[in-house]
C-alpha cells in the first residue's frame, strides 16, 4: 500500500541520492538521439566519469526536444541539482552533436567553463518560447525509474483524488479545465469522461490510443519513451473517474523502446501498489495491459482499434454507437490519446483553473508538436495554444534554411492541410486551424520551403491514405486510388482540366461518404493545396511544368491508364 508519506519518503531518498551524486550529466536516450548512437555517448561518459573520479553521475533521460542537434547531453551542476528554486540556480548546460570522443572534454569541464564547440544556447527562442506541461519531466528524469517520477511530483494527484475526491469531482475538474482530445479531433475530454461515467454497465474499460501513425509525428512516442508514468497516472485517474477496472494501451509495435519502457513502468507501478488490485489501499483496482498494433494506420481510428484489441480485423464500424456507450466487448469504453492522458495529472495537481488560464478561449493548455521538415530547429516542442504559426516556425523553428523561402506548413498529417505564408499569423488552436482548411491533428507539423511541390505533397498524402485504407467502404478504398491516379497524372504533366474537375468531385464525394475519419479527411491535403496553391496545379496542367522543379513532367504523352 502506497501512501502520501511513502511518496514523500521516496522523494526525499531520491533527492538525497541525487545531491550526494554531485553534478549530473544527462544523455538523451529517446528514439531520436538513440538513432544517432547516444547509447555509445552515455557509455563513454560513464567510463570517463569513473576514470576521472569526478563527483558526478551519468544518466539516460528522455527527449530534450532539439532533435536536430542530437545526440543531446545536458549538464546540471551540483548546486542546481540541490537547489530548491531552480530559477536562481546555476543554469543547466546543453550540448549538441555529442560524440563518444567528446566525453573526456565534457567530464573535464564540470567545474570549468562549458565546452564551447558543443554548447547550445539555452536562452534561444527554441527553448525560451516553450511552455512545458506534458513534457515537463521529459529530458530531466530517468524514464525507467518510478522513484524519479515520484520525486518530480508524480502520483500525488492520483493519491489525492483516490482519497479526497469522488469520481464525479474528478470528471468535473477535467471538464472545468477545458481539456480537449489531443488525438486530433479536439472532442471535450470532460464530456467524454462524463458520458462513460454515466453509461450503464457493470464492466467498463479505459483505453489509451498510442497508435500514432501520421507521417512526421512522434509526440506520443516521445512522451512514452521519456515519461511513461505520466500516461499511466492519467489512465488510472481516468479509470477512477469513469469506473473502469480494466484498461489497454494500444501501442504500435514499431515503437519497441516505448513498449519496453511502458512495460517497465507498468511493472514498477504494480510493485509500488499504484496499479493492479486495491490501488494505494483503496477499493479502486485497475489492470492494465499493452496491446501491440501490427502496423495498420487505420487502427488509430477508435472503432478499428477496439476491433483489433478484440482480435478481429482492424476495420472501423459506423458510429453511433460510440465507444462511450458500446465499445470494447460492447461495454462502455473510454478511449483517449497518450497526450490527453498526459495532461490529466497536472490538471488535478494544480487545478482546473490554472490549466484553463492557459491557451485560448476554446482551446486550453498547451500542445505538443513534432516540428519537422525544412526548419532550422526540428524536434519536439510544447507551446501554449494560441501561439501563432509564425512564432512556432520562425522563432522556435528558426525559419527555413538559408537561401530558401518559406512556402507552407502542413499540420494534421494525412487528415490535415497545408497552410500558406499569408495565414501564418493565425493562432494555433482547433478552430482557427480548421477555418484555414487544416486541422490541429495529433501534432505533426511539417515545414516546407520553395523546394517543395505542393501537388507532389498532396500526392504523397493521398498515396499514404490509399495504402492505409482498410478497404471496407467503397469511396475510401476505390476513391483514394482514383484520386491518387489523377494526382499522379498531374505530376507527370499529362493531366487535363477535366482530370482536375474530376479530382475535385471525388474529393467532395469521398469526404462526404466514407465510413470513417480516414476516408472522410483523405481529401483535405488536396483541397487545401488547391485552395492556396492552385497556380501550381495549373502550371502542371497547362504548362507541363513543375514550378518547384520536383516533378518530372513528361514532354511526351505518357501511357494513359495502362
Amino acid at each position: 500500500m502506497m501512501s502520501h508519506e511513502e511518496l514523500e519518503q521516496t522523494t526525499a531518498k531520491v533527492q538525497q541520492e541525487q545531491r550526494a551524486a554531485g553534478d549530473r550529466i544527462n544523455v538523451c536516450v529517446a528514439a531520436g538521439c538513440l538513432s544517432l548512437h547516444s547509447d555509445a555517448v552515455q557509455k563513454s561518459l560513464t567510463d570517463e566519469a569513473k576514470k576521472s573520479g569526478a563527483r558526478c553521475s551519468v544518466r539516460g533521460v528522455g527527449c530534450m526536444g532539439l532533435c536536430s542537434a542530437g545526440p543531446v547531453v545536458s549538464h546540471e551542476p551540483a548546486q542546481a541539482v540541490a537547489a530548491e528554486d531552480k530559477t536562481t540556480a546555476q543554469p543547466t548546460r546543453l550540448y549538441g552533436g555529442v560524440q563518444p570522443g567528446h566525453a573526456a572534454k565534457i567530464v573535464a569541464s564540470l567545474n570549468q567553463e562549458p565546452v564551447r564547440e558543443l554548447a547550445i544556447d539555452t536562452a534561444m527562442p527554441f527553448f525560451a518560447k516553450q511552455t512545458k506541461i506534458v513534457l515537463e519531466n521529459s529530458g530531466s528524469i530517468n524514464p525507467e525509474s518510478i522513484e524519479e517520477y515520484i520525486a518530480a511530483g508524480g502520483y500525488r494527484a492520483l493519491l489525492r483524488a483516490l482519497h479526497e475526491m469522488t469520481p464525479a469531482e474528478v470528471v468535473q475538474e477535467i471538464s472545468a479545465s477545458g481539456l480537449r482530445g489531443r488525438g486530433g479531433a479536439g472532442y471535450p475530454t470532460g464530456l467524454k469522461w462524463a458520458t462513460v461515467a454515466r453509461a450503464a454497465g457493470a464492466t467498463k474499460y479505459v483505453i489509451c490510443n498510442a497508435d500514432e501513425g501520421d507521417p512526421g509525428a512522434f509526440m506520443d512516442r516521445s512522451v512514452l519513451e521519456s515519461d511513461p508514468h505520466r500516461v499511466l497516472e492519467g489512465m488510472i485517474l481516468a479509470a477512477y473517474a469513469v469506473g473502469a477496472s480494466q484498461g489497454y494501451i494500444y501501442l504500435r509495435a514499431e515503437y519497441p523502446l516505448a513498449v519496453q519502457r511502458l512495460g517497465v513502468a507498468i511493472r514498477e507501478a504494480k510493485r509500488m501498489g499504484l496499479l493492479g488490485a486495491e490501488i494505494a489501499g483503496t477499493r479502486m483496482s485497475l489492470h492494465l495491459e499493452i496491446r501491440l498494433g501490427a502496423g495498420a494506420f487505420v487502427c488509430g481510428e477508435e472503432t478499428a482499434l477496439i476491433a483489433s484489441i478484440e482480435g478481429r480485423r482492424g476495420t472501423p464500424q459506423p458510429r453511433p454507437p460510440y465507444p462511450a456507450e458500446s465499445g470494447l466487448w460492447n461495454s462502455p469504453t473510454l478511449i483517449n490519446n497518450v497526450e490527453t492522458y498526459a495532461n490529466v495529472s497536472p490538471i488535478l495537481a494544480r487545478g482546473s483553473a490554472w490549466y484553463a488560464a492557459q491557451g485560448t478561449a476554446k482551446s486550453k493548455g498547451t500542445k505538443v508538436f513534432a516540428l519537422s521538415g525544412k526548419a532550422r530547429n526540428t524536434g519536439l516542442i510544447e507551446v501554449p495554444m494560441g501561439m501563432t504559426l509564425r512564432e512556432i516556425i520562425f522563432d522556435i523553428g528558426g525559419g527555413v534554411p538559408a537561401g530558401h523561402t518559406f512556402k507552407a506548413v502542413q499540420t494534421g498529417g494525412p487528415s490535415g492541410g497545408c497552410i500558406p505564408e499569408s495565414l501564418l499569423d493565425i493562432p494555433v488552436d482547433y478552430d482557427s486551424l480548421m477555418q484555414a482548411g487544416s486541422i490541429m491533428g495529433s501534432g505533426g507539423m511539417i515545414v516546407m520551403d520553395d523546394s517543395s511541390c505542393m501537388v507532389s505533397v498532396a500526392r504523397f498524402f493521398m498515396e499514404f491514405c490509399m495504402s492505409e485504407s482498410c478497404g471496407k467502404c467503397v469511396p475510401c478504398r476505390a476513391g483514394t486510388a482514383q484520386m491518387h491516379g489523377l494526382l499522379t497524372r498531374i505530376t507527370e504533366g499529362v493531366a487535363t482540366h477535366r482530370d482536375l474537375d474530376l479530382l475535385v468531385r471525388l474529393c467532395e464525394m469521398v469526404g462526404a461518404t466514407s465510413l470513417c475519419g480516414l476516408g472522410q479527411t483523405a481529401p483535405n491535403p488536396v483541397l487545401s493545396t488547391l485552395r492556396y496553391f492552385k497556380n501550381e496545379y495549373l502550371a502542371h496542367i497547362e504548362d507541363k511544368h513543375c514550378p518547384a522543379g520536383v516533378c518530372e513532367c513528361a514532354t511526351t504523352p505518357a501511357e494513359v491508364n495502362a
Partner: protein
Amino acid sequence: MSAAPGAKTFVIDGVDASATPGQTILSAAREHNIFIPTLCHLEGLGDVGACRLCLVEVKGARRLLPACTTRVDEGMEVTTNSPRLADYRQMTMQLLFAERNHVCSVCVANNHCEMQSMATTLGMTHVEVPYRFPALTVDASHERFTLDHNRCILCTRCVRVCSEIEGAHTWDVMGRGIQSKVITDLDQPWGTSETCTSCGKCVQVCPTGALFQKNRTGERRGKDPSFLPYLRTMREEL
C-alpha cells in the same frame, strides 16, 4: 390504428411513418415501400455499412448516415433521395465498376447481377473514372464453385453468411485498401479448404459474378438468397 408500444414516429421523404424500437432506417423505409439502394446489405445478414449506397440525409446530423445501420429515433426527419445523394450514388457505382474488371457482356452473371441492375436503377450511363483493370486471379479449385476476384466488389456477404449462418467462417478478407481481397481459410485454394462445408450459401448471396456455380448456364445461373430470412427467423424463434 394504435402504435405498438415504444414505436418511433418519424418523417421519411415528407411522409409520416413509424418504426419499431431499434429498427433501422432501411428496414422501416422498405416497410413503407420507400426505395433506398443497397449492395452490401442483405436481409438476414448483419449489416456493415460498407457500400455507402444507402447513405441518407438526416435533419440535424452533421454527416450523411447509412440507412442500414442507423436506428430510427423519435422525430427523425429522413431524406432518402436528393440531387446530391443521387450524384454520390452514381459515383459510388462508377468507382465499383472501374475498380476491377466489370465487363457485363462477358460476365457469367450478365442479366442476373445486382450490381448491373443497381447501375441501371441509379441511371449510371457511363464511367468517368479510368478503369483500373488490375491483374487478378480466378480460383476454380472447388469442385462445384468458382471464385473470380475480377468481379468481386468486397461487399463481404460471403464472409458474413459463412460466419453468421453456416458457422464455418471459411471466408475472410485479407490485405488493405485497394489490395483487399476475399480469401478462403488462410488464402489457400478454395478446393483445399478444410473448413468449407460446400453448402453454397456464399454463392447464393454473392451479388455479382464473383462467386458462381460451375456448369450452370443460361437461365439456371441466377441466384436465390431467399433462404436467408427464413433461416434467421427459424433460428430466432427456436
